[in-house]
């Protein structure tokens, strides 16, 4: 996707270069894909990010517990050994907005990220890999939640 704003203040040179090239968004918020984060379904979120219809693939792995004691904090991870990964996505199917996180992968990092998400209820959690050849691959796992993490 488009070049993202460089947030390190000491990288002023880089920022200057980006601005000169007309690649720097007007505001930081402009770089945030609002439509994708407002999408209600996994497919809509991927579409909003410019991806094709996702295809289930064994080459993508989703990690997480089978059961989460508390939906407020659910450890999840997304990985693939395939070359040419552009982006990794983590989504929670039954959350009010499905998309939780988007990671733009470079050659300098492995296509393997872990974070923690909130889950309102038991749901499929989906890991998506958007590839440089345009393919969109996904893996999913059901995580049961004993206590919802989005309420009071």
């Amino acid at each position: 996707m488009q070049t993202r704003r460089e947030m390190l203040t000491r990288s002023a040179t880089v920022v200057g270069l980006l601005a000169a090239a007309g690649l720097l968004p007007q505001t930081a918020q402009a770089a945030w894909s609002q439509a994708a984060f407002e999408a209600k379904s996994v497919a809509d979120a991927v579409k909003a990010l410019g991806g094709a219809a996702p295809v289930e693939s064994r080459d993508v792995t989703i990690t997480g517990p089978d059961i989460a004691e508390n939906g407020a904090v659910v450890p999840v991870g997304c990985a693939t050994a395939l070359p040419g990964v552009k982006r990794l996505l983590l989504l929670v199917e039954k959350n009010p907005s499905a998309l939780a996180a988007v990671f733009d992968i470079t050659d300098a990092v492995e296509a393997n990220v872990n974070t923690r998400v909130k889950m309102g209820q038991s749901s499929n959690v989906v890991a998506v890999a958007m590839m440089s050849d345009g393919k969109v691959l996904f893996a999913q796992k059901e995580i049961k939640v004993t206590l919802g993490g989005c309420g009071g």
Partner: protein
Amino acid sequence: MKTFVVGMAAMLGALGIARAQGKSVVEGIAEYRKMLEDGNPADLFEAKGESLWKTPRGPKNATLEQCDLGKGQGVVKGAFVELPRYFADTKKVQDLETRLVTCMETLQGFNGADIAKTPFGRGEQANVTALATWIAAESRGMRFSLPQGRVEEKKSYEIGKRVFFYRAGPYDFSCATCHGQDGKRIRLQDLPMLTKNPGDGIGFAAWPAYRVSNGEMWSMQLRLNDCFRQQRLPYPNFGSEATIALGTYMGVNAKGAESIAPSIRR
């Protein structure tokens, strides 16, 4: 907080099954808890606490580095596993948090009574929690050994024991109702048996702890405060003698238990 029990029950009820993907629920939850241990957000509070200790603050613009936590001025390592203990300057048995407030008052010029009145998680009270988190972390892996050599320390234990067994309120609960027997649980929560050493990193040896359920750092004073809330008793004042005595009782009982504080709890 109050929706916790209801919510948890409703969700588990909705699952309607005793096993999730081949593992028992208990095994599944143990796996979940294990996953959270690497990357305990208590680390954030620990870092904040260390910085608060070393940064000049308050009306006197002083650091806390001269604070005596019981092992001499400025000695932090090992202090946590010997508290509560008697302090000659205040002529009181103090727990970690009340001792910190004393130091914030004497060294930094804060008003201790104001801090005590501040709700948990706010203002200087949040700083006390962060400081306690760091100080506890500095004794991680050490074993509890509260001094009981002084009359005041023995008295604190005896009072604490009586507070522990004190039954009152609309539900007739005491601390002992839930924590006086081995191997019991509330819903799926294991209850530490606190009238003896409950084991390494269990009960008194696990707090302060990061609470996953609300994303808050809970000190021992707040842990006890919420126990009394759930006992349906009135509100224990911050640093009250009853809460400190309970700390002495649990801490002395935990003699030899390894401290894992700050831990992560559901």
